[in-house]
């Protein structure tokens, strides 16, 4: 089934790459350049899943996750952190802020699709 996924990253290339991969798998994609923009976009609509970068200007991915979890309609959707850091304490931080999972950058398209398939079962 077609899902709507939001990708949040300050690097346009990264957004585009994710967007391409997800669209190729038949999903609809929404892009945002940072956490603040994502929140703004999600004020009037909802999505099925959020994939967000961690280190971004204005609002980082962890704050975005926290903010989204505070909203009723985003309490239960999967939020995946895109991160370069795989140290346990970083992971704990992600978990503490309410993220569903993580993807280590760099990643292969297959990995991205595997995560999506896992958290958004058809």
């Amino acid at each position, binding site marked *: 089934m077609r899902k709507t996924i939001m990708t949040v990253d300050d690097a346009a290339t990264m957004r585009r790459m994710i967007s391409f991969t997800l669209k190729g798998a038949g999903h609809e994609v929404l892009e945002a350049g940072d956490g603040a923009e994502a929140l703004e976009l999600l004020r009037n609509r909802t999505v099925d899943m959020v994939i967000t970068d961690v280190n971004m200007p204005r609002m980082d991915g962890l704050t975005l996750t926290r903010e989204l*979890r505070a909203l009723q309609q985003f309490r239960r959707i999967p939020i995946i952190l895109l991160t370069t850091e795989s140290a346990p304490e970083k992971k704990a931080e992600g978990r503490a802020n309410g993220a569903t999972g993580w993807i280590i950058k760099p990643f292969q398209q297959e990995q991205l699709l595997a995560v999506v398939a896992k958290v958004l079962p058809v």
Partner: protein
Amino acid sequence: MTTNDELQQQLIKDLLIESFEGLDRFDREMLALEKGAGTSDTPNIIFRVIHTIKGTAGCLGLSKIESVAHVGENLLSALREGKVSVTPPLINALLAYADALREMLRSLETERHEGEADYSELLRRLQDLNCETAAPVPPAAPAAPAGWGLFEEEPSAESPVTPPPATVAKAPPIMPEIEPAARPGSGGTPANAPSAADSAIRVNVDQLDKLMNLVGELVLARNQIVQHCGPAQDHGLLAASQRLNLITTELQEGVMKTRMQPIGNIWAKFPRVVRDVAGELGKEVQLVMEGNQTELDRTIIEAIKDPLTHIVRNAIDHGIEGPAERRAAGKPDTGMLILRAFHEGGQVNIEIMDDGRGVNIVRVKQKAIERGLVSVEQAGRLSDREALNLIFLPGFSTAEKVTNVSGRGVGMDVVKTNIEKIGGAVDVVSDSGRGSTVKIKIPLTLAIIPALIVTSGGERFAIPQVSLLELVRLEDDQKRKGIELLCGTPVYRLRGRLLPLCYLNQQLKLVPATAGQLAADLAQADAVNMVVLQADGRQFGLVVDQINDTEEIVVKPLGKQLKGIACFAGATIMGDGRVALILDVLGLAQHANIVSEVRDRAQPDKARTDQTVGDRQTLLLFDAGASTRMAIPLSMVARLEEFPRKSLERSGEQEVIQYRGQIIPLIRVADHIARVGILPEDLSDPMQVVIYAENGRSVGLVVGRIDDIVEEVITVKRESSGRGTLGSVVIKEKVTDLLDVSAIIRAADPAFYLDHPATLAA
């Protein structure tokens, strides 16, 4: 893999744009950090640039960029956390590191791979800097085998902290109730979902170029319609054509604006350039930039990028002195380099000012002579301004020694050529000891330009308005009196200045050009229409049959068959659908030998002076007073001038006059020839003065009246008829004395011919 090559290429292109922009930001923030001008966010911004490059490059499979980026990221991470302090070696290493990344990206751009360069030494340097702090090196991200995971599946070592507002649900099957809510919003979303704050989008430049071309065509069509509607009686049609006219103009401006970029985009890299160059030369330079927001067409931005960089490097290398020299000159240690950009009269002005030592004109002249760019004689004849412009000649360089930074002698002439290629002009002003300023004027756009339409030999030509100074129309009497022949070139005395004339119909061979033709033309035409143009800092008058109108023209490049012709800059389509050629003012002036490289002029000049009496010579005939007709070879004449009597001054015994910022002695020719001299009272007002220059010194010969210029084979009839003359000849059936110029100058000023080198070097 779903990725196809095309997408990969597209993504790489995006990565390149993004990364270059990011690295420029990196440089800027780095310099701010160095100056202590950074904010608390600065280290994070720097970190993020590299972080992003690393992440994106990794996803695109660019492992070399990724691994290099990774090492820097570790150091920057330590910097961000305050574990590493900002030191000059750190800044230098990180800037070099940014350059390394740029190099790889550039290689990726041009050669499609990351390049072969070895950065291990640089990377070791970065690692060392990181170790110095004794901070634990962050582990090099041992990626989890899968590269991803879900927290709930992770055997958590620590007790999971409960997320503040809500509990994390296990990866949930999607809530059916969310579905409908998602739909309405997404229904209208285009495939390429825009992000809310993205008020700016990237548009392919080709797309913009295409739009611009279409607008060009529309402007042409508009011109045609407006022209055809001129005589129309139909009010509806007239109104519609007027509306079309307005809208087209607006559209044209609008599209033009989309191609505009602030000049700050290319200036952004100058702080880094200035820092590096100044550092290399042991100088201290502060860069000030004004008018960052001044906008220019992107093609022009591209074209001036390199010339500007060169001028900036030059200013630091040649202009600004080292701290010690500055202190000795009573200036602050730190030199100032100011970049200014502003709009003026439909053009963009860019000024690069420094407060350095200025250009040493004497040395410039010397160098130009040494390099054989000008003859000694010519060098002397040059005004300061002209002499300054020698630095734009190919093969010129005044640097005492060739430095790494500039002085390879390929600089300023390339700068000038590049700027003139886009219809711009460059000029240098120098104030000895106080600095110099390079002024660049460039058009806003190259695609649509205002032009003056003229007719010559039945053809229409467009002259770009930028080079147009004024229009002059001479009728009957004026034209007979106004136009003289000097050196075979017709000249017109415009407000006291000699303006060389160029007949367009002859230059382009629209009419058979013969010497007699010119005179005949002059006599026939009831009026002379002259367009005063500026090329290469020189003015000249272009004589045309008719001056028509000004029009916005769309510049179309010439086909390659015609491209080699310097006289034309392009073609345009006129309102009536016919094609008109656009004149290249500089090319035309060169073709007419009005402006030429000084070097070229040296040769014929020399040839002429070498001729001895008895050969064919061009002679200036004048009346020395008391109806004595005299002649001197025209090659000895620098200029013919008129001075009002009241400008005559005295310096001791000598009569002098101020001329082009110099004081030059005046010699009354009549006093020095054997016949009875004329009394001061007899001097005509204005005085006719022949300026004679040699070795940088000028002297004015006051004559009664300038009669004519003739080309004659001189056969001396009678050897010296007395003091001050070389002999007599018969010219135009009149006995004419040949003036012995050097003898009378020596008589009036014995020092004139002495110690030239010393004078020059002084």
